[in-house]
């Protein structure tokens, strides 16, 4: 029996670039290069490992994003995923987290799945909520924030390292899993992988294909509103001293002056 794995991957602005907001207070995508969110590479990696362990499995990567988001899909395909689904529609511009989860849920259902794997958080919005939202939408178990994951006999197990405890958790498929960057280094695409990716299918879907109305998504359909976004003033240049034997003492002076000691 084939194991159908869908990996949710997000196309994000490069965090090392100068990220900012556009006039409508959505993400400005014009001036910054986009890429596959680094944390989603861990999700692709775990999907590929789970697929390798299974007798018969298919890994589909899925993104909701603008046209350029195909780059993120290509990267995931070159790592070894089998096929890709791209949800793109001008009306998606400005979609919030609950809206994104609605679109992802419809696309996942349309694709068919036993297991959905996500990253722990995007590197732009960084909310860390989409996997839980998606599980709620799909009405399946969530097995999230895993640093170890395995699938056997229709059951997913994993280790979840929380603030106060480390837990072993399990759920029956279908389920939504999210993995952390502790789950294991993601592989680099090989030359062969990059060449093969060019021939792999990328299916494009729009809102109509998913049975969704423009009013349910985008800026207009969002359940949250951003009223303002202000760049923080650069921190005023601090005092920098070179240690010439008294660096620790001078630092203590500073801390005492600030009433920390």
């Amino acid at each position, binding site marked *: 029996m084939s194991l159908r794995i869908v990996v949710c991957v997000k196309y994000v602005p490069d965090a090392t670039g100068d990220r*900012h907001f556009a006039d409508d207070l959505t993400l400005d995508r014009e001036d910054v290069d986009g890429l596959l969110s680094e944390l989603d590479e861990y999700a692709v990696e775990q999907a590929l490992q789970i697929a390798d362990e299974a007798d018969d499995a298919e890994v589909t990567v899925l993104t909701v994003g603008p046209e350029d988001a195909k780059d993120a899909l290509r990267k995931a395909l070159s790592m070894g995923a089998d096929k890709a689904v791209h949800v793109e529609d001008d009306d998606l511009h400005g979609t919030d987290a609950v809206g994104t989860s609605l679109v992802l849920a419809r696309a996942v259902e349309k694709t068919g799945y036993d297991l959905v794997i996500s990253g722990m958080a995007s590197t732009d919005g960084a909310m860390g909520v989409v996997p839980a*939202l998606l599980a*709620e939408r799909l009405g399946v178990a969530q097995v999230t924030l895993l640093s170890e994951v395995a699938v056997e006999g229709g059951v997913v197990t994993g280790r979840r*390292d929380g603030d106060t405890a480390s837990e072993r958790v399990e759920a029956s498929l279908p389920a939504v899993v999210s993995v952390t960057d502790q789950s294991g280094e993601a592989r680099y695409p090989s030359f062969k992988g990059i060449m093969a990716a060019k021939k792999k299918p990328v299916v494009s879907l729009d809102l109509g294909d998913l049975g969704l109305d423009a009013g349910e998504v985008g800026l207009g359909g969002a359940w949250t509103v951003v009223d303002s976004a202000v760049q923080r003033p650069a921190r005023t240049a601090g005092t920098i001293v070179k240690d010439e034997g008294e660096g620790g003492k001078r630092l203590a002076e500073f801390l005492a002056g600030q009433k920390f000691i």
Partner: protein
Amino acid sequence: MAEVLVFVDHVDGAVRKPTLELLTLARRIGDPVAVVLGGGAGVAAGVLAEHGAVRVLAADAPEFAEFLVVPKVDALQAAVEVVSPVAVLLPSSAENKEIAARLAVRIGSGIITDATDLEAGEEGVVATQSAFAASFTTKSRVSRGAAVVTVKPNSAPVEAAPAAGVVEELVVVFSALARGTKVLSRTPRESTGRPELTEAAIVVSGGRGVNGADNFRVIEALADSLGAAVGASRAAVDAGWYPHTNQVGQTGKSVSPQLYIASGISGAIQHRAGMQTSKTIVAINKDAEAPIFDLVDYGVVGDLFNVVPQLTDEVTARKN
């Protein structure tokens, strides 16, 4: 006055500080109604009442500990039905964000995560957030339903404001998925006796420059002299020198203490994402060009193995 649900983080009734901060913020919006799940509600009720809870809704069931996330969502949904709040506030943590998310979809509300401030606005609760590794400050609100907001620790002072805090039983009917994800075992973290990283007023962190697990004693000694929590960069964690729970940054903890001291940390964007909102930043690094120096209030260019022990001795001497 409108009621505001506050989800209580506690260990056997010992309420954690971020929840008390949340009560301060909740009072700006309405009357706080605390929700306590699991054992210890009686113990928690006292301190919650001292900090402004007009009511305490309590539910206890094994499901809360034995299964992941959903039972708590079921309970909060039940609380929303009892109270009809204008907002539901949770202390930001990985699990609480997931609880908030599922609740938001169920009750048809927008969700805002990692707020650093809250105020009552004309069109509802306004939340302040920081974006893009804290390089922007945004103000947002939900346009549908009760505002579901998670708030970062250290976002407000803890203030006493005595209120009735009447304890009432919350009846929870678990949903079909409540037992969907089973917790097979749980290994609690050993307490180090140091303050909780996200709640600490002072954080002392070490990075790759610390160069070894044993050397982290130098960082710990400084932390102990200041009564601080210990943090680490991902490089130090990946090298196995310090536990992942102490990692500060994008994929670790996000901290905003009064004072952050970084030693042997270069200041990569992913590290900055977790500490840039600290009030006062100090760095010790032997490379004068390290990007961390762009952020600091005070920086020492030097070898941490000379500077940190000297600082520790000086702090200890001044305290005695």
